[in-house]
């Protein structure tokens, strides 16, 4: 045996060694063809490569306008027609339907959960025959352009986590907002405007706050942060150069400042410094770009009639819809509106009337307006709140007055344009409007579908932060093919 080992040793020549080595290397080389990421160090794709590879496929939509109805509108009074609730008005919600759904602190102590039928009339509209409430005559008239999802569902039951979930894909704060993800993934189309703008308005109904964490860039570069426009006469303040300073001087000042910042950057390497420089440059270009957009005086009267007369009153929802169209038309990737006042825990019939007066005409107008300009197919418009409202009454139920509590299990959101199917109703709830019986769409699925419309694979749009790769859809989300045209 020892001799064999010895013989083996002296018989192994360099030639043997090299031929065996070449085989070994050859096999590894062949194997590596099957694992393309093998030699990229940790199998970790470079962040720049991720962004350079975007969009992953040709997008249907280039831009998004998200009409967020903050406070959660009642789907049972607007979209999801449930005559059963009128028939059983005042009767208790069967336990089998509630099925252990948790309650908010506001109704947890209620002895009874009396069903409340909507006091508003519903009718079918358009070719699709979708049921719509009498509160929304304008939306009803464009129902064949809408893709109504009756089966959205979320995990949160209170405003803050639910809003944060819808906007950032997580219930806890400090994750990047959807608009920031898109700005990161697709950049701004127009270099003279931010890629992500936020417009606020409030109705007279019971309101819930909105706060800047909803349009935060989270761990993404701060150039992707949402830029909040102010609700007054001047949506962007301090656009004019101070007296005695002209454009050339301003330019010179910025160049000098940028030089100083570059110096500091080469010393410390903080990426926030370059972000700051970019923001100054953007602000400089915005000085000429923004006045053109925020000047509403050139809008023809037909536009004023389309959106309603309020659209020229700064800070109203109608004015924000018009401004959203103008921003989007100029290449702003994501325009986020929030309209407050939908949180009708009591006196719902009265409150919701006012809210619908605020939003119905101008929301529908936005669709019509984009359509007549040839932009609807490349602009995705989304309308909806953070959850739905319960089919049972909160507080005292009378024949024509009731309140509704938060309901995360099933609610309605609509989309239009941007390559989603027009004129369909997707998903279905049971006859109590409480549970989804067909085609549920979770918030993660919703996000995945929106990203898909913009040419992004939600599983590939990632950002590595503190050792973990993050996505808007976290570790879930499924493309809802039935929504896509």
């Amino acid at each position, binding site marked *: 045996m020892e001799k064999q080992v010895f013989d083996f040793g002296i018989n192994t020549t360099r030639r043997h060694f090299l031929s065996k080595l070449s085989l070994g290397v050859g096999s590894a080389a062949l194997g590596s063809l099957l694992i393309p990421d093998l030699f990229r160090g940790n199998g970790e794709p470079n962040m720049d490569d991720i962004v350079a590879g975007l969009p992953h496929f040709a997008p249907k939509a280039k831009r998004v306008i998200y009409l967020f109805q903050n406070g959660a509108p009642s789907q049972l009074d607007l979209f999801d027609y449930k005559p059963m609730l009128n028939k059983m008005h005042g009767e208790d919600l069967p336990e089998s339907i509630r099925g252990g759904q948790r309650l908010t602190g506001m109704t947890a102590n209620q002895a009874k959960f009396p069903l409340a039928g909507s006091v508003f009339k519903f009718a079918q509209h358009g070719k699709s025959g979708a049921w719509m409430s009498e509160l929304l005559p304008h939306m009803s008239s464009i129902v064949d352009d809408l893709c109504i999802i009756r089966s959205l569902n979320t995990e949160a039951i209170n405003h803050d986590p639910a809003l944060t979930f819808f906007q950032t894909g997580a219930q806890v704060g400090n994750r990047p907002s959807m608009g920031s993800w898109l700005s990161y993934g697709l950049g701004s189309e127009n270099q003279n405007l931010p890629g992500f703008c936020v417009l606020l308005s409030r109705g007279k109904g019971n309101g819930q706050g909105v706060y800047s964490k909803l349009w935060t860039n989270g761990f993404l570069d701060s150039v992707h942060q949402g830029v909040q426009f102010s609700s007054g006469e001047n949506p962007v303040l301090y656009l004019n150069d101070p007296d005695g300073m002209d454009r050339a001087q301003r330019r010179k000042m910025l160049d000098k400042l940028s030089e100083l910042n570059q110096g500091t950057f080469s010393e410390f390497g903080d990426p926030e410094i370059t972000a700051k420089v970019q923001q100054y440059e953007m602000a400089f270009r915005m000085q*000429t770009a923004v006045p053109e957009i925020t000047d509403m005086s050139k809008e023809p009267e037909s536009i004023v009639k389309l959106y309603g007369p309020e659209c020229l009153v700064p800070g109203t929802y109608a004015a924000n819809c018009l401004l959203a169209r103008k921003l989007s038309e100029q290449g702003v990737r994501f325009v986020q509106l929030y309209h407050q006042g939908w949180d009708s825990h009591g006196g719902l019939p009265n409150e919701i009337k006012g809210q619908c007066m605020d939003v119905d005409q101008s929301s529908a107008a936005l669709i019509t307006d984009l359509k007549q300009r040839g932009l609807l197919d490349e602009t995705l418009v989304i309308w909806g709140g953070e959850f739905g409202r319960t089919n049972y009454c909160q507080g005292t139920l009378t024949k024509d007055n009731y309140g509704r509590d938060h309901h995360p299990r099933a609610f309605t959101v609509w989309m239009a344009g941007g390559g989603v199917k027009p004129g369909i109703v997707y998903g279905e709830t049971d006859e109590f409007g409480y549970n989804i019986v067909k085609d549920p769409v979770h918030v993660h699925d919703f996000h995945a579908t929106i990203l898909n419309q913009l040419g992004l694979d939600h599983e590939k749009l990632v950002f590595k932060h503190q050792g973990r790769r993050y996505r808007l859809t976290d570790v879930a989300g499924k493309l809802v093919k039935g929504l896509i045209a």
Partner: protein
Amino acid sequence: MNSKSKPSHQYFADWKGIIYNLAFFLNGLLVFLLVFEERLSIPFWMQSIGRMHPLVLHFPLVVLLLYSIWTLLVGKPESTRWNSDLADTLLLIGTFTAVIAAFSGFVLSKEEGYEADTLFWHKWLGIVISVASIVWYSTGKYLPPWKILSKIIAVSFILLLLIGGHLGGNLTHGEDFLTAPLELSSEPENKISFEEAKVYADLVQPVLKQKCYACHNAEKSKGDLQMQTKELLTKGGKNGALWDTTRADLGLLLARVHLPLDDKKHMPPRGKAQLTDEEIVLLAEWVKGGSSFEQMVSAISPQNPVYNYAQNILGGSRTEESYDFSAADPGKVKELNTTYRLIKPYSAESPALFVNFYNRAAFKSSDISDLAPLKDQIVAMDLSKMPVKDEDLKTIAQFPELRKLLLTFTDIQGRSLSELKKLTKLRELSLSGTAIKLAQVKELESIPSLKKVFIWSTDIQQEELAQLKKSRKIDFETGFRSDTVVLALNPPIIENEEQIISGNTPIKMKHQIPGTVIRYTIDGTEPDSINAPVYDKPILISKNTDLKAKAFKKGWYGSKQVDKTFLKSTYRADSVRLITEPDAKYKAKGGKSLADGVKSSAEPGSGSWLGYRETDFQSYLLFKKPVKASSVTLSMLRNVGGFIFPPVRIEVWGGSDEKSLKLLKTITPQMPDKTTSNVDDLVFEADFAPQEISCIKVIARPLAKLPAWHPGKGQKAWVFVDEVLVN
């Protein structure tokens, strides 16, 4: 252990013999069963033996292959190098396992659900292998492996094993199992769009193809049924037509599908891929709807379950257009990108580029012509709101690949619109907001690819639109027309925030919609659209005024009324001295608050109201120089729920100093009742003959007992005052 090992060793000494005999026995059994196959019935407990087939079959396959290869390789003279003993053992193990595999396979073949042709050949090959191998083992002693005959046998064995194994694989996994992945990648999925899809061709047929064709095709036609074509389907099989809508079960096809899985007649047979619930619903709905072969998916009602099924099957396809040009030089694309001109590929992989222009002021015609190097890649151009002239259309027409062109709100007049006829791939064109005319647009109909034209807000008249709508080929989007729409205006806005007007501050109003007329009154009447004065310059008031205004405009309904009360304050008191102290909770800034010229909000806790409950409100207003006064106004608050009532009595005294005061006026305010609104501003004006005054004393007495209807009946009411104005 040791004591037992010896006898067991002896017992196994001739283990080869035992195995050989066992294999021989089993082969005999197998042949016997084969002879009487027709009369055979497999007891249920033996089914498990049958199902062991996939478990054992790989042993003989490998072992016999090994032995065959050994036979091929072995040379003469037989030497120790060739391990004949080991080879002999291999053949024996192969023979034994082959018969077990063949036997179990034979049992398994009695179960339903295997494709007959393949099964036939597989079964016989398996049996041949089993029998042949035991013959080979038996004759091995007489046939040395280096003989040419041995080599031939070995090659035959290899072939038999490979063919038999392949057929078995086909039986379990399907015929194209091996090649399927190759076909999928070589043939890109050509998905049809929802609009163009047909119910039969794109929904029903794929299901039949996947789940039924395997047995019902030209080669097999089980039950004399073939399903590949419309004619064959309609013909049915030996049991008759496939569907019959007059029957509750909709006829044979669905009846078979709905049978329990254990039923012999259930389709697809047990062991084959089954239909999903959705597919069954699809078939049922299709049959119910008259089993049409031509119906379009888009024609079915959205309430029909097939509609949703179709959405899930047909939707979501990324039907990316494939372009027959190659990508432009990325360096060139980058070079031509400016802050006002975005050029980007549709996706990272796409050769097609789109161009967007921004900033009207910076636009030059050359911004379009500069793009010439990319003319073979640019498929979309958005020139909305740019000052594009008719001449520029000629340049635009040089981009032959354009599919989408937006000229919304450009300066084109349409004179050279016909230039665009050169764009033979153009599909979508927006001319909204331009001055184009009907005739110019009609010319475009000759572009064969053109599908959609946007002509909202152009010079084309309403009557002319009807002519265009006749076009079958092009969809004209005419958008929203406002001519017949009459809406109510929103109310005008009164710009003055401060309600107290001191000096000559004018009252200003505005309305955001240009051309709106504001009409107003100051006498408390409702302004109308004819007689009420038109607001054309800021209003100056000389006394307390209730301003009411409405907006009017031709083509609109008048607005709702807006109103606001303005309190005139001519003389600001130089100092205020409170005679009685306000309640500690509501003392504002003391006397100063009464003459600060700022009207408080209706919020009692706003910190600018003086509140009195236990005592009267009494205060001096002092002027350094005498003023010629004719009225004193008290601005107060009513908040019924908050126990804040008007005072029962107001007294205004005046004179040259504190000691020479005369009572100038007494007011007894109206008390609220149950029907009065809860909260309101109260204004009490005490007028008197004009006179020179340096000192004014004001007294207001709270209600001592709240009325019986009030929740706090019998308790004292509050009075709240925030301003005392002298005119």
